[in-house]
């Protein structure tokens, strides 16, 4: 593949310059800005001077502590239980808002577990951010494999010489070209708790036996609903990438497999899959990065609710930096997200390296 282009480096750099320039201007420089801002108390707009605050923004976001709660006891020393038989503990706010424990000031319960009679409560200085982090990771963990696999199945289905196959290609690809904001608005109607399309459909299939679910209004289903809709919207794009991978596999290999009497599964396992190796790495990394950037769906559909069940890292960065005019806080979140994505990408690179 060596051509004049790869050898004549002057022309090569000249061609690359606009791209590199734009990337430097809009991605690399802002990143260093963000890192710089995250060490200050910069506000979006404020007459107050900016001050250097060290890593305080990071502490405010990431501080965690564990509080041990002893059960409430009556005069005889017996543990007090409520009507359901659950042990009663003092409220966490009696500790976090008490002047006796300045180290827990401003912290809030994230989750707790019980060991014996005592309860251990994990308190965080920014519970919303912690939930956003968990939700984002959960989103990536589900969406990356499911979307990748579904895209591959679709690619295998449309990689056939059938009449009208282009119609299916167009249908599967269509959601990708529609703006995600429009798609999110439409799915808000589909997920509507009263007379949304999905509830109506399920009700029709079960002959009225279906109890309507408020998909986006219920903390248990909200994130899952957004996952499903996001996969539906983006799967066509990765289907096309898989398809291009499939079409680079030489037909002679399939013919050889056919002659050898390989089953369909064997053909896939020993011909198709090894041939898709590089495509798989690309698809996985791209989906992972896109999934970490989850924002528009949240902004349009749930605003992070209900009960923070759909908070995400990028949504928090925007909400904080612009909505609450705290640019340094928003920058800090961006830096943390960058480190997170970088770490995961490096791990993926290492796991999928050529052995």
């Amino acid at each position, binding site marked *: 593949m060596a051509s004049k282009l790869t050898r004549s480096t002057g022309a090569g750099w000249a061609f690359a310059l606009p791209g590199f320039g734009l990337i430097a201007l809009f991605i690399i420089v802002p990143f260093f800005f963000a890192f710089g801002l995250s060490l200050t108390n910069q*506000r*979006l*707009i404020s*007459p107050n001077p900016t001050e250097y605050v060290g890593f305080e923004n990071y502490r405010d976001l990431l501080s965690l502590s564990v509080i041990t709660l002893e059960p409430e006891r009556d005069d005889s020393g017996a543990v007090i239980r409520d009507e359901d038989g659950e042990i009663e503990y003092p409220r*966490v706010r009696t500790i976090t808002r008490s002047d006796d424990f300045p180290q827990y000031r*401003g912290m809030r319960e994230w989750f707790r577990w019980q060991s014996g009679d005592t309860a251990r409560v994990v308190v965080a200085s920014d519970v919303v951010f912690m939930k956003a982090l968990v939700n984002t990771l959960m989103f990536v963990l589900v969406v990356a494999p499911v979307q990748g696999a579904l895209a591959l199945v679709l690619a295998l289905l449309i990689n056939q010489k059938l009449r009208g196959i282009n119609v299916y290609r167009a249908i599967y690809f269509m959601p990708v070209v529609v703006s995600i904001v429009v798609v999110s608005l439409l799915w808000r109607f589909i997920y509507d708790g009263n007379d949304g399309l999905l509830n109506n459909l399920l009700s029709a299939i079960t002959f009225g036996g279906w109890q309507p679910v408020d998909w986006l*209004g219920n*903390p248990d289903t909200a994130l899952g609903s957004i996952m499903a809709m996001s996969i539906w919207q983006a799967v066509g794009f990765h289907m096309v990438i898989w398809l291009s991978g499939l079409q680079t596999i030489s037909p002679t290999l399939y013919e050889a497999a056919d002659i050898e009497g390989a089953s369909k599964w064997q053909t896939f396992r020993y011909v198709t899959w090894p041939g898709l190796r590089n495509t798989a790495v690309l698809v996985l990394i791209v989906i992972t990065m896109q999934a970490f950037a989850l924002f528009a769906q949240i902004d349009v559909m749930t605003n992070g609710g*209900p009960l923070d069940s759909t908070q995400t890292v990028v949504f928090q960065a925007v909400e904080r930096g*612009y909505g609450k005019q705290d640019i340094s806080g928003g920058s800090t979140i961006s830096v943390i997200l960058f480190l997170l994505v970088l770490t995961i990408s490096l791990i993926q690179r290492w796991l999928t390296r050529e052995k």
Partner: protein
Amino acid sequence: MKRLTNAGILAGTTLIATGAMAQTELSMWYHGAGNEVESNILNGIIEDFNAAQSDWTVSVESFPQNSYNDSVVAGALSDNLPCILDVDGPVMPNWAWSGYMQPLPISEEAIAGHLDSTVGRWDGEIYAVGLWDAAVALYTRQSTLDDLGLRTPTLDNPWTGEEFMAALEAAKASGDYEYAFDPGMAWTGEWYPYAFSPFLQSFGGDIVDRSTYQTAEGALNGDAGIAFGEWWQSLFTVGYAPGTSQDPADRDNGFIEGKYAFQWNGNWAGVATIEGGVDDVVFLPAPDFGNGPNIGAGSWQFGASATCPHPEGVADFVEFALQDKYLAAFSDGIGLIPASEEAATMTENYAPGGALEPFFGLSEAQALVRPVSPGYVVAAKVFEKALADIANGADVADTLDAAVDEIDADIEANSGYGH
């Protein structure tokens, strides 16, 4: 931004070229893009103003309301603000403190007799003046009150909290309605603090402690605040009100269609409700939860940006626009409450016997402006999230504590916001 301002200057210079030679151009931004009636009235005022005097010529640029505040913040960051700024009442202190508005040199006579809530003051100075205010009332049908056997509350004798809850219970028990009460959870954003913080104040709490504006501790999460939170949560757990996932279409039409017995809504929806066929609609005052009945106040106002070299020109324009006939025109056009009583008598809806007359009384008797502080912008967002979380079942005390921590941290990070 730059392109827009250039367009404004271009429009201005064309006017100068064709009109009087000595007029100085004043650019203006307005939040009402997309509303034709509103734009027509404003353009009429501007034309009249430009023709009536020879010092200034105003040229306007309209933005959609949803992105208006963002546009101004972006304009301020890039030093590209117009001379005349249109500003939402509760946001004004933030813009004044941030240094992109300057005091408006308007005479006290020009605003004599105007509703207090239409005059935006910060740090002892007038920064912005509005042509109208808005008010919120409890919408219901006279037939609903009759069917449920409820007393009609008045401004002098509003419902108590218990009476209000009894009314909701009666409406729920009747089985005639999908929900007894529609507070408007579908209208996210400024609606939450504007419409719901007066309930909190009626309980005796507040978003921040207004004696110092330095903390929310005790105001938002004190006993009154927690009592308010418990009551708020009960609206949703008992099933009186639709929650945060309410369909926006139901918010707009649910009351008209008879899905809701009571609706908490603003005067701007009054005409549509009557035209929608609810001819026996009544606008009831806010219930009193112990600390007096309250509704929010403060709407859009005009002021001068800090970079404007001619604040006296802005003041001239605002004084000109404050004429009763323009106040009345805006009121007739888009249903807003005119800022003065004289103007009210000239309007179709707010004159004595007019369909929306109760709102003028509500505005006079119950209006309480939102906290006058630059920190309000952030506190409002925190409050909105707390109310949504409580409605969705979060622990009341913990949620309010967290909101207090966030508001206090923001006040501290801004060195007390200059109070």
